[in-house]
Every structure is written in structure tokens, then in C-alpha cells.
């Protein structure tokens, strides 16, 4: 297994608005292999979103080293090595669903015919083909988020970075979206996913590995291998292993918080 993302002694401090120095991440070390599905979980303020944004080169670390695809994070971003899915769908209201999915391809200057073909293929992948000509606000929240996944995958990046993508959805929709995501992930060979969540069951259900983080400063408390068979489905949630991992995670999270209270 080759590490597609390698993080060593990563630190991040920033100044908050009232001038205080906030230690967001402290000595993070993490290797992620190609094709792996890794979740980052932790209470709010543990720096999991910050870590994801540093991997994406959307913000800069204060110290430490990070390589993505064997290059600096900035190079990986300008090479368009990853797709990013935000907590909100972040679709552009003035574009139809199809045109939203075409957006990254337009910026990367693909030809028109190729853009449309790829965007349509992606919409088919997320099973929204019949909504291609609708506007985002005509779709439900779950559908909007699926469009945003299609958009992130449109230019065929090898890495998918997801920042609590289903956090705003209700439980039932979220479980359906989890199944959708696993289906999409398994259909794309060697796709690496880093998935930020605050839901224990979501992390266990989706991941190969779960990185548990603790707050103030953000540290990796524990890394748990989730050894459950794939493909996973509704019955996975009834496995003893699922309960075992869930309760382990819950304890680990509680300890991380308890240390600071």
C-alpha cells in the first residue's frame, strides 16, 4: 500500500478575532493509502475540518509537512488531484444541475461536447439524470448534495475530500446517502475518500479506518481499523461488529472530551 496522503508533525495555530492564539492542530501524523476510505471524527472544535482544508490547500499549516499524491498540497490543488464536497451543496443558483456539474470542466477548459457528456455520465452515476435541466433550488437537500458529489467527481480526481456532507440531512436521508456514496465509491477503482463527520454510525458504516480526534488542541486520539466485510448494506448496521465499533468509538470520543473538562 502506497501512501497517497502523508501528514507529518502538522501544526496549526491561528489568531482568533479577539487576538487570542488558538492552537487548532497539534502534531498530527497520518498516512492514508490509495483507495482507502478514512473518516475523521471528533467533537466540534477538534480541528477535523481544519485538517481537511489543509489537505485541500484551502488553508495553510503553521508547521509540519504534508504531501498529497507525492507532491506539496498546493501542487496537488493546482493539478486538480482532489474533488471537495462541502457541508452545504454550494451549487450556483444561476446554473442548471447539468451546468453546475460542468462548472469544474469549464474552468479546466474541456471542450463543450466532452463537458456535457461527462456531466451527464456523472449525473447518471448519482442517479439524477432526469433532473439535468432543473435548477438547484428545485431539488431537495439530499438531491442537491448528490449533485455536488457529481460535480466533485466530474473531472475524475483520485481523491474525494468531504466535509460533513450529510450533516444537514435527516437521519433517513443520511442513511440512503451513505449507501449511495458507498455504491459510487466502489464503482470508481482506487478512489481515496477522506470523510469528516460527527456521526459515529456514519463513520463506522462507511470507513476502512476512523481517525478519532480530541479537542483543544486538536490531536489524533486513536485510529480504529473497521474490519467489516464489503459491500456493506442495511444488514451491516445489524452486525455485532457494527455495535462493537460504535461503542468503542463512543468511549474513545468521550475520553477525548473528558480530558479537557
Amino acid at each position, binding site marked *: 500500500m502506497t501512501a497517497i496522503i502523508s501528514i507529518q508533525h502538522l501544526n496549526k495555530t491561528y489568531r482568533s478575532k479577539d487576538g487570542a492564539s488558538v492552537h487548532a492542530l497539534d502534531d498530527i501524523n497520518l498516512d492514508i493509502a490509495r483507495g482507502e476510505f478514512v473518516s475523521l471524527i471528533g467533537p466540534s472544535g477538534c480541528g477535523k475540518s481544519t485538517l481537511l*482544508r489543509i489537505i*485541500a490547500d*484551502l488553508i495553510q499549516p503553521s508547521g509540519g509537512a504534508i504531501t498529497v499524491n507525492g507532491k506539496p498540497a498546493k501542487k496537488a*490543488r*493546482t493539478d*486538480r488531484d*482532489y*474533488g*471537495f464536497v*462541502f*457541508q*452545504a*451543496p*454550494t451549487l*450556483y*443558483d*444561476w446554473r442548471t444541475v447539468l451546468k453546475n456539474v460542468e*462548472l*469544474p470542466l*469549464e*474552468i*479546466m477548459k474541456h471542450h463543450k461536447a466532452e463537458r456535457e457528456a461527462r456531466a451527464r455520465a456523472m449525473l447518471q452515476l448519482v442517479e439524477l439524470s432526469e*433532473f439535468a435541466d*432543473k*435548477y*438547484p*433550488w*428545485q*431539488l*431537495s*437537500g*439530499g*438531491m*442537491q448534495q*448528490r449533485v455536488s458529489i457529481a460535480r466533485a467527481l466530474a473531472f475524475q480526481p483520485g481523491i474525494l475530500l468531504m466535509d460533513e456532507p450529510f450533516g*444537514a440531512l435527516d437521519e433517513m*436521508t443520511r442513511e*440512503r446517502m451513505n449507501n449511495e456514496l458507498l455504491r459510487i465509491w466502489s464503482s470508481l477503482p482506487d478512489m481515496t475518500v477522506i470523510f469528516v463527520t460527527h456521526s459515529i454510525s456514519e463513520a463506522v458504516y462507511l470507513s476502512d479506518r476512523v481517525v478519532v480526534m480530541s479537542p483543544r488542541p486538536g490531536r489524533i486520539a486513536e485510529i480504529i481499523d473497521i474490519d467489516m466485510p464489503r459491500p456493506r448494506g442495511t444488514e451491516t448496521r445489524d452486525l455485532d461488529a457494527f455495535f462493537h465499533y460504535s461503542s468503542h468509538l463512543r468511549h474513545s470520543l468521550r475520553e477525548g472530551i473528558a480530558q479537557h473538562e
Partner: protein
Amino acid sequence: MSEVSSSAASGDLRPPRATVDLTLEAFARPGAARNDAPFGGRTLGRDLLALIALFLALAAFQVQNPLLLYDTTFGSAFRNATLQPVLALGLALTAGLLIFINFNPKDRRSDPLGRPSPRQVIASLILMLYVAYILAAVLFGFNLSGALTGVEQAAFTARLTDTAPRDALQTALNLSFVLIYPTLMSIIVLWQPWRRLPIYAAAIRANAAPLLVALLVLALWEGLIVVLNIQAFLLPRPSVIAARLAELYPRLLSAGWNTFQNAFWGFAIGSGLGIVAGFAAARFVGFSRALLPLAIAINAVPIIALAPIMNRWFGELNSASKIAIVALMTFFPAMVSTIKGLTSVDPLSLELMKSYAAGQLATFIKLRLPSALPYIFSALKVATTLSMIGAIVGEYFGGSTAGLGYRIRDDAGLFKYPEAWAAIFVASAFGILFYIVVSSVERALMPWHVSFREQ
């Protein structure tokens, strides 16, 4: 997940909602604000279009023969050289639209079978013939009725003097009547108001409250003046104003058109430069920080107070001083709104662009500009009414005697209050029309905007 929810994801930054929606469709679709479609999504747009076409067909008729143009009050308005082609082109546009909606295959409402009837075809042909006749006469100085009756073409464009061939012109005029009556009938055939009675009933029902209030206000105004015996020069009765308006409107239309042109060019120059300055200021933060306080300070000056100075600078009698006033009035709101629109972009959307390693230009065109459009248009809509105010008040301090501002000041000075009120009515009509046009452009450019979404 098959349900289609019409609500958008909440929690993100939304551009300001249009507080007053005065577009054609908002007028016509009174139920839209309450999210019910009282008449099946059908609008009064077609009725408005047909009424405008009727008016323009009649007005353009005055233009085509000197006997009407110079001998009637109505015609006198259209001796205004720039108003003539505008009327003719307006007629061509509305007639074309009216014909188009009758033959639009997508609009099955025009006929249940989706096929125009022979009646509609004949009506359209007559209307096209009339439009061609008017366009030829106004734009190219070729009068068909004159050519058929053997009157010299020059007689149609020359002033009506004692030596004018009045008899020959009368013959040509009689001939042209053969065209105007069928044209008016044709417009009504294409309009088909008899099929639209249920829509009118629904529109009246949906607007019952505001209509009642309007009627009540008019009745009270009229009644109280009679009962309390208020002097006519303090406040004329609405019926008197209406009568004076009916009598004077050709001249007021001409005066309004002159004033509107100043308003329009001032609006175009002021808002245009304001938007460009906004682009520059949003792009170069230093520029913006240096300029914005000054802009806000200048904007706080009541620009109207500068009108006498502008008159001195740009010439009292010409249009340039009025255009300058309007441009100054509309510049800063446009600039400030543009800056605000370009800089208050959803931060996640910006991060998305960054994640694509998108350049400045791509981010501007694909994200900042569309996000800013609602802000820019709300400034433009405010500027439409501001520009009419500026153009009129500019004329109070001296200017062309052919403008509305001059007429209002003059009539009021001579205690001709009904005339002044009629002129004020025309001024506000121009302001509202301008607003509607800009609102319609906005709606056409951004049908996706939150305030236009149909449920």
C-alpha cells in the same frame, strides 16, 4: 429521494430580495406573492401588450399625414423628431410580439389545437402591412397612400403651410383610413379579449382589496373637495385633472419624452460608470478603501442642490447639465451596490473556486458577477426613479421649455394646478414605465433569482 422540494437549502448568504416587484408579470400575476396561481399561470401580459399596440397604432396614424400631424393637438405631440421613430419602432415591436404569441407553437393556449385560425392569419397580415406602412413613412419618408394618390412625397414631410396641397393630402388621408380600421380590428382579433373574461374576473378578485382602496381614495378625494369646498388651486379634483390630462396628454407625452431622454442618458452614463468603478474597486482593495469614504461623503450631498451649479457648468438650456445631474445621482448607488455585490460572495463558493485552482478571471465571470447581479439590479431599479426625479428637478432651475419639469414649474407658477398635476401624473408614468422595463430586463437576465421563483 424522488420528491422535488421547492425550498432551497437555507443558511447560506442570499442576495437581497426585491421588496417591490413591479415587473409586468408581477402586475399580471397577483396571486404569485401568495404562492397560488389564481388563473392557472395565465397572465395579463397579453392584455397589456394588446392595449399598448392599440395605442401605438393610433398614435402612429397621427404621424403619417401632415393634416393630422399639424392640425390636431394629438398630432402636435409627435412633431417631436425623436418621438416619431420611437413610436414607430415601438409599434413594430409590440405588433411583432403580439403576432409571435399567436403563432408560438409552444403556447397552445392561443388555440386548443395549437394551430392559428384563418382569422388570426388574416389579422396578422393586415397588422404587418400597417407596420410596414408606418415604418416606411416614418423611417424612410415614403408614404404609400401618397404614392397611390399621386401626392408628392415631399408634401408629407414638409410643414403644413397655406401652399400645402391640402386636398391631395385629404385624399391620401381618406385612403389611409382604409388601413387603420382593419388594423385596430386585427389587434383585437389577435388579443381575443372575449376569451379572457375568466382571467379578468380572477384578476379583479385577487386584487379586490387594493382596487377598492384605490377607488375609495379617489372617491374621497373628489367628494371631500366638493363637500369642504376646497379651492381648486390648492388641490384640484381628480376628475378635473383627468379631463385636463385627456386634453393635454399629447403635449405632455412629448415633454415627458424629452425629459425622459435626459433621465435615460444620465442613468446610462451614471450607472454604467458606477458599475465599472465598482468592478475596479472590488478588484483592487486599496482602490476601494481609498475611494469608498469619499464616495459615501459625496453621495450624502443632496445632489439636487448642485443643480444650479451644474447648469452653470454645462449650460443652462441644454440637456448636458440635466444628464450630468442624473449621472451624478445614479453613479454612487450603482458603485456601492456593485462593490457590495462583488465582495459579499458566499465564502464556500469562493473556496470551491479555489479548490478548482480557478483564476481571477474565471472566478469573476462564473461566480462574482452572477452573485452581484441582484445587488446591481436593485441599484439600477432605484436609479430609474431617481433619474426621473433628477431630470425633472434639473429643469426647475432652468432648461429647455420642452421638458416636463419646466411645464410643472410654469403651470404651478401660473396657478394652473390641474395642468401641473396632469404633468406630474405623466412624470410618474414615465418613472414607473422605466422601472418596469429595468425590472423586466432583470427578470430576463436572472430568472433563477429567489424573488422570481414560482412555487
